[in-house]
């Protein structure tokens, strides 16, 4: 066991990686406030669950108007544990939106976005937009009435923007009306473009979190004390 460990360590430097990630110094936070520091890792965990369940769903899903809904019914009714896996993906998406908001609010109200962590914040904001995009594009994929009309509304909202609106709507729909091209477009965004972007942003975000360390809980400044 120790021989194996030494072997791995020599090639990968695993102990150092472990130290850098899990044994770094973090500010002391006590009581309920400490729980606010768990939101980021909760997000990372849910993201991993979404990747796994999403990959599984992709094995039985077809992004075509003819078969999208049937393939989802097939997952729900006939695939072993299909209902559970789809449920995880569905609720994971909802949880992710909630968590990303809470995490962002926590960082904002604790002023953790300030120097030197501005870049961490910016990559986090990018991540927030990607989560919204994943939610929007994923919603269409079941291709039922709710999905269809919700997307019509979403596309129309984009279409309201001055000057570029109509063009944005056209790009989103992949044509002049909602149809097969819209579905494949949203599918490609949902499973290729956005997850890859998300993974990239998370990588940088996490690197910066470790590089800078995380900020302390802000405290009230007493009389005569100066804020750095």
């Amino acid at each position, binding site marked *: 066991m120790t021989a194996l460990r030494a072997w791995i360590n020599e090639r990968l430097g695993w102990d150092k990686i472990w130290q850098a990630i899990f044994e770094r110094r973090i500010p002391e936070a006590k009581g309920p406030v400490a729980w606010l520091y768990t939101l980021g890792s909760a997000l990372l965990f849910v993201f991993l*669950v979404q990747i*796994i*369940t999403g990959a*599984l769903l992709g*094995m*039985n899903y*077809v992004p075509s108007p003819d*078969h999208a809904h*049937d*393939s989802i*019914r*097939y997952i729900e009714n*006939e*695939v*072993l*544990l*299909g209902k*559970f*896996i789809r449920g*995880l993906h569905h609720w994971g998406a909802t949880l992710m939106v909630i968590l990303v908001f809470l995490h962002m609010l926590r960082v904002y109200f604790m002023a953790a976005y300030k120097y030197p962590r501005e870049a961490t914040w910016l990559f986090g904001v990018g991540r927030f937009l990607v989560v919204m995009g994943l939610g929007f594009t994923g919603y269409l994929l079941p291709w039922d009435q709710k999905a269809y009309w919700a997307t019509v509304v979403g596309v129309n909202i984009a279409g309201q923007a001055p000057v570029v609106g109509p063009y944005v709507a056209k790009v989103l729909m992949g044509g002049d009306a909602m149809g097969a091209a819209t579905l494949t477009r949203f599918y490609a965004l949902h499973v290729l473009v956005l997850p890859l972007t998300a993974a990239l942003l998370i990588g940088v975000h996490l690197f910066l979190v470790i590089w800078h360390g995380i900020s302390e809980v802000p405290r009230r400044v007493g009389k005569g004390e100066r804020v750095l």
Partner: protein
Amino acid sequence: MENKLSDGQISRRSFLGWLIAGLGALIAAVLGGSGLGYFISPVFKRKEEGWVDVGPVKDFKSGVPAKIEFAARRRDAWVTTEHRASAWILTSNNRDFIAFDPRCTHLGCPYRWDDAKKQFLCPCHTAAFAIDGQVVSGPPPRPLDRYTTKVVGGRLFVQPLQAKA
């Protein structure tokens, strides 16, 4: 870790460490287990039965093979397709039936019943099969393939095989 512990005592830190590891293992087991089940579920899937009703048994004449055509539905996961299929039906007593796959076992050509010779003849490579499907002459490697049959309530059902690629 610095505080001295007597034998059998667990420090708070190592307790929490084990707790995290345990919960992590539980989550991994549930998530990994169900994911694995989903992934390998085709292994457990039962084959579709796909019985086709081809009509009342009294319509078949004893001792004379009859070619029947019917529409077979095939379910391929979420896609259901209907295709035309046929079979040669043979009976000697209108109770026991044999249904032959209408493709020659050599290369899949459709064969016909020759009433004069009392044989099934395949035009492609001059194969001949006896009425019971045994090879009489020609290149076929095995007797005619059979579909499973059953009689329910005076009607004949056959179960066409899927074409092997």
